[in-house]
């Protein structure tokens, strides 16, 4: 297995090269530009057989992806933030048509005010569009998640599109040592793209995207909901199979020092790396701290979270975006909802943090853990929603 120094963007582009999709349609946007820029160089150099469609906007990019996928091609793209929002009209169509597209998504704050740095507001804004959403903690996971995403979306039990995400600049531009697979191994791993329906198949003609009113729209949405339910099992199977083959296993969530923990942090993406270091440090001091990483946000791993938090006294739910609903962030509202029926559940505090790329340091995580220890001791939280790190 070649060990390479790669940024998150380079790692995702490398995974795309090895997957060798039939079509990539993309438009550049910071901080995801490099993914498709590097990939376009692979196309120019003849290293892939991909038809690269240089479009005039992200709306066109996703539209071209939908068309190509509906024709039976294996399709990938990449974007971020405003680009993801410009795709918004087409994203739910890709899901409803059950097109197995993989999108390399770099999490970046939504405008406005205009900002190019990491938070999760872009990806969270499209969370209910029927796309599988996988968050990466580092460049290694970015590489692994793109490969697994292709397996997940093409599984006949799923056939929904997926976005594999990294955190803008923190992962996308940070160079790390990653283990990659040989080209032939990836080719064998992803296998041949299986076409279920093709709008270009004259022997089995179909209509795709026809109007669907009171009579059938609900049934089609039910089929999507069912596919998303099945996706959980497929994601776990694919993650375990990846571990058996290549030594790195994945699930819906990942726990770190959580089994005997009394206080915990629940987070997504790169913040988990910071939290891991603090957990180690606190454990040395005898504080029973643990980490729950939510790797997959869609479908939402409610059962896994209930199980993982069942013995925790106090947990900090970390949201790198805000719903602006007065009810906290997206992760918090869903975790709290998942725990509603449980008799054994921790005290929860929502920390909205890191908006627009504001640093979340080891010290910040220490402080958040200390507040959980205090909550566990007193049985009270400071207030369910804290905007952490904002100047008051």
């Amino acid at each position: 297995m070649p060990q390479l120094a790669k940024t998150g963007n380079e790692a995702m582009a490398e995974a795309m090269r090895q997957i060798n999709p039939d079509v990539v349609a993309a438009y550049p946007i910071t901080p995801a530009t490099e993914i498709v820029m590097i990939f376009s160089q692979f196309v120019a150099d003849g290293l892939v057989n991909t038809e690269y469609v240089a479009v005039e906007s992200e709306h066109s990019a996703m539209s071209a992806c939908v068309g190509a996928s509906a024709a039976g091609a294996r399709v990938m793209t990449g974007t971020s933030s405003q680009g993801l929002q410009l795709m918004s009209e087409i994203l739910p169509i890709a899901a409803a048509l059950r097109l197995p597209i993989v999108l390399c998504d770099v999490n970046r704050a939504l405008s406005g005010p205009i900002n190019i740095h990491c938070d999760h507001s872009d990806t969270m804004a499209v969370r209910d569009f029927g796309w599988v959403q996988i968050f990466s903690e580092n460049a290694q996971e970015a590489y692994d998640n793109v490969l697994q995403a292709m397996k997940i979306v093409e599984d006949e039990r799923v056939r929904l599109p997926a976005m594999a995400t990294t955190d803008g600049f923190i992962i996308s531009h940070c160079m790390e040592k990653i283990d990659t697979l040989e080209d032939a191994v990836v080719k064998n791993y992803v296998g041949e793209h299986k076409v279920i329906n093709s709008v270009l198949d004259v022997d089995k003609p179909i209509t795709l995207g026809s109007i669907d009113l009171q009579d059938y729209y609900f049934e089609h949405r039910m089929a999507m909901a069912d596919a998303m339910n099945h996706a959980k099992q497929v994601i776990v199977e694919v993650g375990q199979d990846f571990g058996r083959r290549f030594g790195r296993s994945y699930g819906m969530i990942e726990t770190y020092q959580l089994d005997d923990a009394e206080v915990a942090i629940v987070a997504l993406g790169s913040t988990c790396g910071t939290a891991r270091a603090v957990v180690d440090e606190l454990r040395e001091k005898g504080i029973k701290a643990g980490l729950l990483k939510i790797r997959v946000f869609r479908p939402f791993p409610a059962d896994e979270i209930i199980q993982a938090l069942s013995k925790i006294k106090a947990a900090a739910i970390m949201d790198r975006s805000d719903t602006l609903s007065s009810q906290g962030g997206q992760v918090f509202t869903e975790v709290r909802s998942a725990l509603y029926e449980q008799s054994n559940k921790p005290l929860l505090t929502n920390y909205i943090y890191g908006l627009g790329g504001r640093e979340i340091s080891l010290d910040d995580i220490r402080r958040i853990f200390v507040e959980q220890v205090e909550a566990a001791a007193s049985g009270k939280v400071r207030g369910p929603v804290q905007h952490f790190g904002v100047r008051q």
Partner: protein
Amino acid sequence: MKKNMNWKELMHGDAVAAGTAEEFETGDWRSERPVWHKKKCINCYFCWIYCPDSSILLDEDKKVAGIDYKHCKGCGICAHECPVKEPKAITMEPERR
């Protein structure tokens, strides 16, 4: 096509078998109906070519035979394109119900 299928009976991914528009009768959308005048018709097929709903009927000898009123939406393209000198072989008349 089976009516009122449940969600498990649907084709994968919002696909529908081709040609099902034939089963969907759109004739009651009309506010004007095209009327074909056999004696004026020169069988040029302009109406047949231009009709967006395949609603110009042909007989066994491939001659124009009339209008499929179950599907014709009354757009009037056939009457507009008819090259016969006025009065044309297809004229639009108010729909009466």
